[in-house]
């Protein structure tokens, strides 16, 4: 549940922030949500990754549909991804996902460092 909320929050808030802020604002959003939600390191990364992977992937997919693949085909020749628009959408989503995940993971580590008690508790539970 926490994972789902974290993912939705990161996706929704960075969707809003990117309307008027630079693309990297999503890293800050992911960081803050990662901090607040306090998921474990890897879970936090996954949540951030998934949020932006889906956000960027779906948006790129929608733009590509409206464009009937004209630009994506050209760009996928340039980058080079053998002219395959779907591959380009996946690469776009993965790059976005990577920074989203890094932001969220950093946030979660930050929280663990700032409030050692909670992390100790977790350690104990694990032990």
């Amino acid at each position, binding site marked *: 549940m926490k994972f789902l909320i974290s993912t939705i929050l990161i996706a929704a808030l960075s969707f809003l922030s*990117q*309307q008027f802020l*630079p*693309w*990297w604002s999503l*890293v800050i959003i992911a*960081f803050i949500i990662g901090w607040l939600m306090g998921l474990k390191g890897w879970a936090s990364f996954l949540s951030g990754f998934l949020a932006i992977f889906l956000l*960027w992937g779906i*948006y*790129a997919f929608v*733009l*590509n549909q*409206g*464009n*009937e693949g*004209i*630009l*994506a085909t*050209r*760009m996928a*020749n*340039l980058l080079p991804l053998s002219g395959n628009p779907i591959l380009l959408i996946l*690469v*776009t989503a993965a*790059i*976005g996902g*990577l*920074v989203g995940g*890094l*932001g969220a*993971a*950093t946030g979660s*580590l*930050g929280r*663990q*460092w700032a409030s*050692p008690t909670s*992390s100790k508790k977790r350690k104990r539970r694990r032990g």
Partner: protein
Amino acid sequence: MRPFKFIIMLLFTVGVTYLLNNGISPLPPLGKFLSPFTGFWQNAEKTDLSYPADLQIEGLSDAVQVLYDDRLVPHIFAQNTRDAILTQGYITAQHRLWQMEFQTHAVAGRLSELVGERVLKRDMENRRQGMVWGAERNLEEWKKTPEHYTLIEAYAEGINAYINSLSPADYPLEYKLMNYAPEEWTPLKSALMLMEMSNTLATAENDVENTTTKQWLGEEAFNFLFPEQNPKQSPIIPATKKWDFIPKALPQTNLAEPIDGKLSHNFPKTPEGIGSNNWAVAAEKTLNGKPILCNDPHLPLSVPSIWYELQMNTPKLNVYGVSLPGSPGIIIGFNENIAWGLTNVGQDVADWYTMDWRDDSRSEYKYDGKYLKPLKRVETYKIKGGKTVQDTVYYTHFGPIAHLDANPKKDLAYRWVAHDPSDAISPFLKLNQAENYDDYSAAISEHSCPAQNFAFASQEDIALWVQGKFPLKRKEQGRFLQKADGRASQWAGFIPQEHNPHIKNPERGFVSSANQHSTAPDYPYYYTGGFGDYRGRRINQVLEANNQITVKDMMALQNDNYSLHAAEALPLLLQQVDKSALSKEELKVLKKVESWDYVYDKDKAAPGIFKIWYDNFYQQTWDEFYSKDREAGVQLNYPENWKTIELLETAPEHIYFDQVATSAKETAAEVVNKAFQMTCKEISTWENKEDKAIRWGDYLNTTIRHLARIPAFTLDNIDNSGDRYAPNANSSWGGPSWRMVVELGEEMNAYGVYPGGQSGNPGSKYFDNFTSHWATGEYYPLLFMKEAEETNERIIITQKISK
């Protein structure tokens, strides 16, 4: 442990984000670039295109309406000319902003700011050639005609209004790829655009090459191989024209040539094959009894396309045609009364002078026995990556030192008409509103550079003026390098405008030009330059033969692939072939070319065989030139094709057919046969490599490159017919950049097509949608409206623009 892990992770995240935002050369900043919110995905234009129905543009004085037709041609309806031009600036920027700015950056020698050090040499060449200096001088001249300068400012205002409306997410794709932002547009940039046109079109000279070639061959051989007039030519102004004026007298000039033309490094040659066709047919020669005007300017092709099509309508103006992005008004087109078209004039208006410096410090040069100081202008290059380079350019009475040699005694000054202040925009703005012959001839009389053949038609008249500013020259002046030693070696003035070659309503019922000589040799002024005869002769033959001309005939002539060059060369080549020496395979190739009808059709094998054969024959004939040219610092001129063919016809035993590398004495027969065997080898290599039989369309392989040479945006695999010596003058890199046919009647009946499309965005379906139509020789009917017909079925988008 925890703070350590956190800090490492934080640094890593910030580092990755930073790299993805700033990029590592040559990769674009991937995060910024791939983000669907701000990056390239934003340029994936909806195929179901729409623009805001209501728009506000600062600076307009009244409301404007823009209707876009189904080919994305804007039709601008404004209340006055200034508003129309301002909107033209805005709409052109909307479709072509990156192209306009990139082209002007290139002319201004600023590409290294965007691309880096590897283009610095090219940047320096442009500035040494005085491109910016010339543009500044022109701009000062424009300011002297306030009623036209206000229009140039309005055009800039329109462009800037568009630039200011953009957020980084809206920037054209190429800005994102190269990671920079558009800057403010200024009237100087329009002046730079026109300098670039002059650089493409008004630089037909071979001064260094002719000097070296003459010194090497000797005067007699040079004059034999390089006659200035082709006896078979069909000049633009027919030989029957009488020159009923007293030519301006030439003062004494000193044509002293330097000792030799060897330079420390070669400078770039103007590419061959730039040319164009235009003609106008009188009413009595057409089936419908209406005059027809046609034009197809040939240029090195690129995307975004060279031309931008539009209509502009005000209560005082209604004009349709193509414009140059970056320059206000319409360059080639028609209005409700007249139509006009342009081809380039080959006259040499650029001369090189060797400098006589006092010493190697270049601080003083000799002029009429005195020493003068050159003006120095320090040029600064801010290279991408932070480095700054400075270079001094020297300006003299003979122009800028455009060629700075390792040996200052070989420095060359560049005297070029394009540097002289002139008003290059008013003539077109006036022409756009011209109603008859008198308006047309008055409008173009001020046009100076690049000189053009202005074909004209109205319902009543047809005419053609060879219009530009032409230096007065003594025989052979400007054909070779000259010593810059004083007033006597400078140009003595210019040919009076009214003496420029022109013709109105000639008896033959048509006017035409295709870059051949302007006149027969009896024209009382000397000129030299770069001219081509084959297309002009062919066009004149076809027009003469037909007295019931239709629009369809004219389209067919623009797309005519018949080459007189092939028709004259091939029978002579075939005559020399020794069939007994050929293998079975070689005989097969010969058979294919023997039956050829000299039509460069894409589906045939013969044009490719002939082309390769002729080129080999040419290179083997002039083998002495090719081996001499390989010597350091030597740049030669080569005999023209017609002269080569004439030699083959009249003197097959001539010494030039002897091969320098062999001890035997060859004649034309040996050269032709050797060339044919080389051709058969080349064809089989090509066929093996391409894995298909030779076919002209594949061999020609017309490719339209992206302006910044981005391969993924290049238009290739274009299946094209034609040849540079046929009216449909296609090559692998250039060709008809706009084809237009206008039948002049009560209603204008006009057709046009160009390669590429209206949008400069590689993510738009309008980027290259005209290309296949263009390659197959089809035309679009042009939508010319007298008033804003919002409900016209061809209108797809309507925009209301308020002030």
